[in-house]
């Protein structure tokens, strides 16, 4: 098997196992309050991390490029209560325009 197919099979199995682990091990009972408090903050923390790595890259160095402008525009739109779709389209549009005119 090629490296690609090895990766596909392994990542599929690993992802399924990771997603199954929590429900199997922690299922069927309420979590202690401390754990719930931590897990409630997991959403904003995790999403923030995904925004940062998605915007500035994970390739071993921070990349500040036109994409940051686009994501910034989306942030402003969302702060002004724009719908998700508009914000996301704006991110792509601003990035594309910035690349066209600044790049």
């Amino acid at each position, binding site marked *: 098997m090629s*490296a*690609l*197919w*090895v*990766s*596909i099979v*392994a*990542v*599929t199995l*690993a*992802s399924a196992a*990771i*997603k*199954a*682990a*929590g*429900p*199997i091990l*922690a*299922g069927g009972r*309420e979590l202690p309050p401390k*754990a719930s*408090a*931590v*897990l*409630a*903050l*997991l*959403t*904003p*923390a*995790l*999403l*923030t*991390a*995904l925004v*940062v*790595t*998605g*915007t*500035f*890259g*994970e390739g071993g*160095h*921070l990349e500040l490029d*036109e*994409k940051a402008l*686009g*994501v910034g525009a989306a*942030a402003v739109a969302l702060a002004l209560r724009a719908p*998700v*779709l508009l*914000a*996301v389209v704006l*991110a*792509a*549009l*601003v*990035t594309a325009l910035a*690349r066209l005119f600044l790049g």
Partner: protein
Amino acid sequence: MLRFGLLIIAGLLFFATPALAQGSQTVTVERGGRDYLAGVRAGLPFALVVGVVAFSFGTLARSLGWGVLAPIVFSVATFSVTAQFAVAAVLGAGSGAFTAIAAAVLLNARFLPIGVSVAPFLKGGPLRRALEGQTVLTTSWALAIGAEGRFDRAFMIGATVPQYVAWTVGTAIGVLAHDVGGSVEMLGLDAIFPAFFMALLFRGIGGRRAIAATAIAAVLAVALVPIAPPGVPVLAASGAALLGLKGGSS
């Protein structure tokens, strides 16, 4: 081919817009008796974005010489945006399968704590819960969290359905329209993914502690990206949630 890609995206936008405007409203207004269908509707705007991201994954995979079958199988079987992009990035950079798998596993390690948080709300015995756990996506999970840490299982499963369809169909379209591969960047499609998570963040954030956790996570992620391998910054930044251990209310 470029025009073809633009057409597809325009078409997707056209068909989804009315449903989307509606969908995003239902999410914020209703909190009570939500069910599968409400979840499906809430998932629609995200499904559209997932479709565009899938399209860019398909074109990227094809440009890396993966052929037609492999990217589609990958999307159908794994359905993990971050993990699949990580594998593409690592293999595309010339590294081997082991590095690719390690990066993908690290990125998906977030589903361990997410799975724990969801576990009490899933139904049935261990096997059934394990299967229901497969429907957990970062988006659906974030959408299905209600007030006071309640979690709506049916809503989450519903929200996953349109996203799964969009992910597999979008990948297939991207693979077949691969000539636009070079234009993913030109069209700014790579900005869609972080903007997508930003939208979820804006939906879910509330309370002083959540804002503090967000700030800490941002600082940690920015600090770690230059020095840690892919996946590690996200995991470490998620540790900002440990702020919840501190006493007092938000």
